[in-house]
């Protein structure tokens, strides 16, 4: 079956991974903060998790969680002085942070410099080993070992993605979500209403960093190889584009952006050397016609409005 081709499965896996990254940038943007440090946090998570699994034989799950956690701690330290900055100044400061992290990893011995860390045990292999304990193998499902590993990786990521999305939607409806929304809409008003604005901005920054760090660990254990250049300026732009193209008003925006931007290069592969031209043209067109991104609050408002009207009509008919 073509769907179970490991290549296709890997593309879908990356869509899901980028989905989690999109949520991470969305949460930071939800308080109106433009942070370009996400690649930096991602690399911290990636290196921490990789070193833990490779050198210290820490179980994968714990290594991933620790990677996210340490990215969060670093975010706390970085956030204290930088979150006082607004708009572009915050963007510049966090961009600088990302570059500093990259250069540090490039020069450290434990990270193996520019060569990076290779030969990591992939998520697929780890999960397959667990599966073998239960007596099941790829043959039980009529799949090759390679396919089975890819399927397991994808299922694992889908599970995590579902969990993160569920928590994000819950967060949005909570007291914290309301506070984020108020701060994004009008910081002075939020202060006047008695919101501890600095606290909530820091919270959003840290949640974003933890998720990015977690994604870093996942990324490392999907590709099994990381170098500092995987997390350079281009990665930041890529993550940010999810929100720019998809829209950052509601969580579905960046998710849609991640989906589009991850599939597009694969779909456009048929165009061969014209691929990047088309990619750029599509970006420009989106910005020209939907400057706030493809999906905004209005997209769903219209949909719900129709549904509400339908419900009202049904209620009337029922009476």
């Amino acid at each position: 079956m073509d769907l179970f081709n490991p290549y296709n499965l890997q593309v879908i896996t990356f869509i899901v991974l980028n989905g989690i990254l999109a949520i991470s940038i969305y949460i930071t943007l939800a308080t109106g903060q433009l942070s370009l440090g996400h690649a930096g946090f991602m690399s911290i998570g990636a290196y921490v998790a990789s070193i833990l699994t490779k050198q210290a034989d820490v179980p994968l799950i714990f290594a991933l969680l620790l990677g996210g956690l340490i990215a969060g701690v670093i975010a706390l330290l970085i956030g204290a002085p930088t979150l006082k900055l607004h708009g572009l100044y915050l963007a510049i400061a966090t961009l600088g942070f990302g570059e500093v992290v990259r250069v540090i990893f490039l020069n450290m011995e434990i990270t193996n410099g520019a060569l990076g860390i290779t030969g990591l045990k992939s998520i697929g292999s780890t999960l397959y080993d667990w599966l073998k304990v239960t007596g099941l193998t790829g043959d039980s499902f009529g799949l090759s070992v390679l396919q089975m590993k890819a399927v397991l990786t994808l299922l694992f990521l889908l599970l995590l993605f579902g969990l993160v999305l569920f928590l994000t939607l819950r967060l949005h409806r909570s007291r914290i979500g309301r506070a984020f929304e108020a701060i994004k809409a009008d910081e002075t008003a939020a202060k006047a209403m008695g919101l501890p604005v600095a606290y909530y901005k820091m919270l959003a920054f840290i949640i974003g960093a933890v998720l990015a760090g977690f994604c870093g660990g996942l990324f490392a254990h999907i590709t099994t190889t990381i170098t500092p250049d995987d997390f350079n300026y281009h990665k930041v732009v890529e993550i940010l584009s999810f929100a720019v193209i998809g829209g950052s008003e509601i969580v579905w925006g960046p998710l849609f952006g991640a989906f589009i931007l991850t599939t597009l290069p694969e779909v456009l592969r048929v165009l061969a050397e014209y691929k990047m031209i088309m990619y750029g043209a599509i970006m420009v067109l989106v910005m020209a016609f939907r400057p706030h991104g493809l999906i905004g609050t209005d997209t769903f408002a219209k949909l719900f409005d129709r549904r509400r009207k339908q419900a009202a009509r049904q209620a009337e008919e029922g009476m």
Partner: protein
Amino acid sequence: MLEIRDVSTSYGQIKAIRSISLDVPQGKIVALIGANGAGKTTTMKTITGLLVPDSGTIHFEGRRVDGLKPHQLVKAGLALVPEGRAILGQMTVQENLEMGAFQRNDTAGIREDMEKMMSWFPILKERLNQLGGTLSGGQQQMLAIARALMSRPKLLLLDEPSMGLAPIVVSDIFKTIQEINREGTTVLIVEQNVKQALKIADYGYVLEAGQIVLSGTGQELLANERVKEAYLGGRKVQ
């Protein structure tokens, strides 16, 4: 209740207010009037902690409050209705009101105050599920005042509540402010609409170029030649 002594605040090099002293006694309405750029909003922002003064002291109910964070001041019982209303346009009227009670967790008390706001501002009750951004200017001002009251303040600070509103709406707003005051909330109001503000004020201060140049009861100031000439459109009697 609120005592401000020799407070100066600046934006970088520019001193916006210089050595201001004023008192807001419990249960009164005090008006701070002045032209554009006189430093009225700066004074309000300094009182509510949005700006930090360079020098001077602010005492609220006997406790020193200058240098405290805005959210700490809201907790202490100060609530600001910011200039230009600052309604959260993407939230409903109800959500806006709930945000005003952000620091409280007495659910019963919040519900009670919500009912109170509905009876004081019937227009908000009709529009409870409408987005804040779809209200008219006057309705938004009502919502902003109601939202500030949701924190159960002892002192309500209003920054130019009449800004951009039709005269008939303005008099409604001022009537409401008087009612709120009668219910026991002390009010400090900043206004360019000098006549309306002084009419309802027990005491007034005139701010010019960052300094207080005159003060007196509302009636005294209304009758004052200098005030008449500068703000009420009266001609100098030669």
